[in-house]
């Protein structure tokens, strides 16, 4: 099976540099702000950042507004109709990107996840893996 692992990312990173993530499999965490079963689109919010989610591949799933979810999927370029799905009540208060949508294939509820520790762990994990990559490049076997 040719699945790629979902690299943990933060929503602010996705909306800050969207073209960098297109085609990549990521794991995004945030609070569900809105969901439209008609168009299979959801809006995920984390702090001051918002990401549009394509939930078509997730099948039948009960979503609860305000709960924290973690989704794994591929970042794809958004279509014109996706722009209509952005929640109008939030647009002035959050940063978002019109260029990307997360095509989710796995979802899990993570209510109770300590986001502060989770963020620190992701940063530690990245720093460690980056250091190892640099070591491999500078000290090739």
């Amino acid at each position: 099976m040719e699945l790629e692992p979902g690299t943990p990312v933060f929503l602010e990173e996705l909306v800050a540099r969207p073209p960098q993530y297109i085609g990549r499999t990521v794991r995004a965490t945030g609070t569900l702000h809105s969901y439209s079963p008609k168009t299979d689109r959801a809006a995920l919010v984390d702090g001051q950042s918002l990401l549009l989610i394509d939930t078509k591949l997730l099948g039948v799933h009960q979503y609860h507004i305000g709960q924290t979810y973690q989704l794994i999927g591929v970042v794809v370029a958004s279509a014109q109709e996706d722009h209509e799905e952005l929640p109008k009540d939030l647009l002035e208060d959050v940063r978002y990107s019109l260029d990307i949508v997360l095509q989710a294939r796995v979802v899990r509820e993570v209510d109770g996840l300590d986001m502060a520790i989770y963020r620190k762990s992701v940063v530690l994990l990245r720093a460690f893996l980056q250091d190892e990559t640099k070591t491999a490049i500078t000290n090739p076997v």
Partner: protein
Amino acid sequence: MNLDNTPCTRPPEDWGLDPLFWVSAKLFIGDLHLAIPSDLNSVYFIGNQHIVRSVEIVGIVVSVSTRSLKLTEYHVDDGTGIILCAEFTTPEEKSDPETRYSYPLGETVLIEGRLSDFRDERQIIIRSIKSIDPNQETLGWLERLALRDHLASSFI
């Protein structure tokens, strides 16, 4: 994910001197794929001449297959890699498929089992699997980061 994996230079009868030989090593899935197989079945070298047979991983179930009556196949993603985990059905589950339980997509699980290669694919033969809290997955990452320092030093 470079651990500079090195095969152990000591003879197999000395491998039991490495504590990792006897425990389920807590490793990232990315590291499991890079472990070097030894000549012995289901024994791998990782880090600085460490020997592992049994491993423990934490991650999210991203694929479930129950097509076979004999086993349930999960693909688990921990953010560093994805690995196939195979759970053999018990005789009771074979005789009564209604009692067979499989973890759903998106479930966070802790899996302990034997590392092996089958048809050129690295996999874990599940010994135990259980659902865990998302915070335990975060704790799992931190434990594995802390334990990687140990892998860089040799047990010899």
